[in-house]
């Protein structure tokens, strides 16, 4: 029953930190909250015995992307926003829609999915890196290469966009 306790804790922390990210005025603090959320999600992956993904999550997401975010925030030295942005019509609608989506997803989740077995049959078969690697490099070889190219293009694009043009 250890897994259920871990799940509950991780999910609660994740939700709280997500809300934290949402509400905090300073972008740095919301970035930190997001990093915490990512760690919780990684934890959840572990409960689902997907260790490789959990590690990759921490490495890529928490490590690389959030660092990039923090770096950019530092670069643009964005101070804390002066006041809580005025809540105008668009904000209100946004909030309502968010809740609406939540309600719908939960409703759909409850009705449509119920017929799956409560737990997995054999955790090793799915979680281990070897299984992923075998699949990755046989059936999904082409997408793998595509991703490589995608990342290359993204880097070049980022460099071009952000380069300071000395005209």
């Amino acid at each position, binding site marked *: 029953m250890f897994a259920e306790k871990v799940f509950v804790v991780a999910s609660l922390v994740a939700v709280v930190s997500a809300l934290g990210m949402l509400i905090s005025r300073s972008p740095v603090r919301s970035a930190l909250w997001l990093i915490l959320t990512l760690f919780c999600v990684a934890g959840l992956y572990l409960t689902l015995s997907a260790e490789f993904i959990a590690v990759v999550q921490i490495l890529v997401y928490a490590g690389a992307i959030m660092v990039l975010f923090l770096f950019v925030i530092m670069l643009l030295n964005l101070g804390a926003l002066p006041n809580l942005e005025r809540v105008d019509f*668009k904000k209100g609608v*946004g909030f309502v*829609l968010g809740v*609406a*989506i939540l309600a*719908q997803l939960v*409703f*759909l989740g409850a009705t449509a999915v119920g017929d799956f077995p409560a737990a997995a049959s054999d955790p090793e078969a799915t979680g281990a890196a070897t299984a992923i690697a075998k699949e990755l490099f046989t059936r999904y070889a082409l997408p793998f290469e595509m991703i490589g190219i995608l990342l290359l293009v993204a880097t070049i694009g980022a460099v071009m966009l952000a380069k300071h043009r000395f005209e």
Partner: protein
Amino acid sequence: MDLDLLTVLIVLLPLVGAVLTGLVPLFLRSFRAHKGLLGAVGTLVVAIPFGLAAWIFVQGGSQTHVTSLYTWMAAGDFSVSITYRIDQLSIIMTLVVTGVGALIHLYAVGYMYSDRCFWKFFAYLNLFIFMMLNLVLADNLLVLFLGWEGVGLCSYLLIGFWYEKHKNSVAASKAFIVNRVGDFAFLLAMFILVKELGSLDFGAIFSGMESLSAGSVTAVVLLLFIGATGKSAQIPLFVWLPDAMAGPTPVSALIHAATMVTSGLYLLARLSPLVLMAPGVMMLIAIVGAATALVAATIALTQQDIKRVLAYSTVSQLGYMFMAAGVGAFFVAVFHVVTHAFFKACLFLGSGSVIHGMHHVELELRREGYEGDFDAQDMRYMGGLKKYMPITRWTYLLSTFAIAGIPFTAGFFSKDEILFKAFEFGFDGHTYAWIVWAVGIATALLTAFYMTRSYMLTFEGSSRWPKPSNLHPHESPWSMTLPLILLGALSLVGGFIGLPKVAEEFGLHNWIHGFLVGYEGRAGPVAEPEMHAHVSLWLESALIALGALIAVIGVVWAWRFFARHELGGDELIRGRFGALYQWCRTSYYWDRLYDRSIVRPVIGGAEKVFAPFDQRIVDGLVNAIARIMQAFSWLFGRLQTGIVQNYALAIVLGVVLILALMAF
């Protein structure tokens, strides 16, 4: 020479003249200088047809001859062709048109010699004669209509001949448009005939007219009458004739006295069998004729301008003709057309000669720097001209006697015949004819009075133009006085072709009656109502005596009245009648009535209602639709605010909707 060629020659010669004197000088400017040649060609081209017509008349003008040239319009079984018909009625009218026309052309050579557009004048006159001959010689209503509108066109061109003055061109347009109103009714009559009978030829009309329903006969005759009032200036549509005096005097003489204005009469005479089938309309014709005669006579009494006096006198005499037509005496109407052509043309040419003289006086006055107002046509500046213009004076006097109806002059025979026929028609049971007769007698008196007034104010009494001693008009050249003499003689002799019945006692029958209506079994083109009751002989001679008496009284009374008072006479009359005088002076305010009731609403309506309506509403509607489209495109434009978040909002909204959809 067969009649076909003759007819074509008679009709086409004036057209050739019109082209020679019109188109050629228009494009070859050098030709304009040869006025003598142009005048000669213009006159010859009318005189020769007169000769030809006279030859046909002498040769045996009794049998009818139809010459068809070619099919004008044809569609299925309705077809109209250019055909001319020579019979008694048309030969008489041709003789009048070409005869009087030739004299007037000769007169015009002298009268218009100083005018710059001499060539254009003769072109229009010849074109007019061509159109008039088409009208008179037509064998179907459409060719008659061709002539009908053609003469309307020529009167428009000739009235507006001196177009530099704005009022002349306005008068010309007015004449054409009022004629067009009449032509509108004429067209409708033709449509009914085509719908009922399928053809417009006179032969087809006369043979098929029994099959016409009473309603359509009345409608056709009424519409033709309205058309005739337009052309012959009767009560509703006579307003254009007085203004038509803006044209040169030969034009007034030819068109607005002798020929064009009588075409309405000719139409009724030509379709007399049809008109006789609509007694109701005949009553209307008689009444309108009588009313016009009386009204015009009263107005003529009050006019200062010599040409306007004659113009209203023409309207009055035309009233007499319509009276005759109204009581069924078509041949007498034609007889009066002939005699009227003689003395009225002579009067107009006489007044033209006077105006011509006074014009020279005016030129001298202007050269000597006289600034005061002077009008060559105003009788107030004339007087005592008999000393300077003897021929004009005598011919004018003779024609005045003729129009007044002094015994044994042309007017006496024709006018009294009309009055007698009216009386006899009344005797035959049509009571309205007696009223017409009474009005006729009153008008005869008035006619005698105002005509003698015009003679006295012009030729007798003291000379009233500035500096009369050293400046006075001279007698017109022979080319003007010769026609005067001829016409004067004709207006004396002309009456004897239509002797009254009482003359049969002395073995002299009424020639024109025999010629037109029929003599010993040979029926002429003009119909006549069967008369049951006949007026006894002594009653007829009493009526003739009455007519003569009235004429003499009118002339003598006016003579002595104006001999004593001269211009003062008008003041006396104004004093006695007052408001009525002013009412007549402005011709019963007809012009103002039409202007306010028809012209202004139509033109004003067009400018204030229709044009803006078209501009704003109909066009506005189209532009409005265009603007609505633009509004829509602007509205959609606003949605693209450019703020990314809004788009995100839209996307999420879409997602929510889809999810909601999935739920059901």
